[in-house]
């Protein structure tokens, strides 16, 4: 699996791989675990995925981003398993000639990954309970053939 891993994400090494004489702009997004969600104190998260499908879908999203935007480089890695507070859950890096493409592509990728890829967050709270997260905010295009649900804004 190229885009999913159970060990810490080494965004430094990923970022260094983006040095490219054609890239004037590199944008890195790191999604990190907050110690609170919707007013409840969180102790840690655990991520689960339908792994082969999630890995393939992330690869497809990256390929689409490369076509839509003028990217020289692109990467996305999502953590699985237990992630502590302030730990990195997902990283997206985009490198382009100019900054507009790098920002827009980065956001395109993380929105798609969060909304569409079969990865699930299990939140553990300080009161000993746990809950499976929902974070679809349906802001992305390309959101057809999907599911019905009440829209809750993140």
């Amino acid at each position, binding site marked *: 699996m190229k885009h999913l891993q159970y060990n810490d994400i080494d965004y430094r090494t990923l970022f260094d791989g983006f040095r490219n004489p054609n890239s004037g702009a590199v944008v890195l997004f790191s999604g990190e675990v907050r110690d609170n969600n919707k007013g409840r104190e969180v102790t840690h998260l655990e991520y689960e995925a339908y792994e082969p499908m999630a890995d393939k879908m992330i690869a497809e999203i990256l390929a689409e981003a490369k076509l839509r935007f003028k990217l020289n480089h692109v990467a996305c890695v999502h953590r699985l398993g237990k992630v502590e507070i302030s730990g990195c*859950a997902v990283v997206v890096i985009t490198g382009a000639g100019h900054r507009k493409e790098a920002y827009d592509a980065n956001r395109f990728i993380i929105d798609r990954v969060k909304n569409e890829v079969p990865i699930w967050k299990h939140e553990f709270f300080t009161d000993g309970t746990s809950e499976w997260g929902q974070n679809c905010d349906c802001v992305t295009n390309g959101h057809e053939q999907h599911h019905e649900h009440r829209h809750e804004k993140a």
Partner: protein
Amino acid sequence: MTVQVVCFAGLRKYFGSKTGVKVEVGSSYQSILEALAKINPEAGEVLKSCRIAVNEQFVAPDSPLKEVDTVFLIPPSSGG
């Protein structure tokens, strides 16, 4: 025929990791969701927001069920 349904995340508390459901030959994938809702009515609401994947591809709920042993029931994503 009997289809094996693999469940993820919050669905396991209703159906375990894998459950077999009986559906009629010639029916749609939607009938799997309906059969599951009968097995555990408490899951009725969440099932409405689930998608079905076969061979690592989502299938349209109203498309006719093909000869498959196993489908994957995909609740709404919550990665990131």
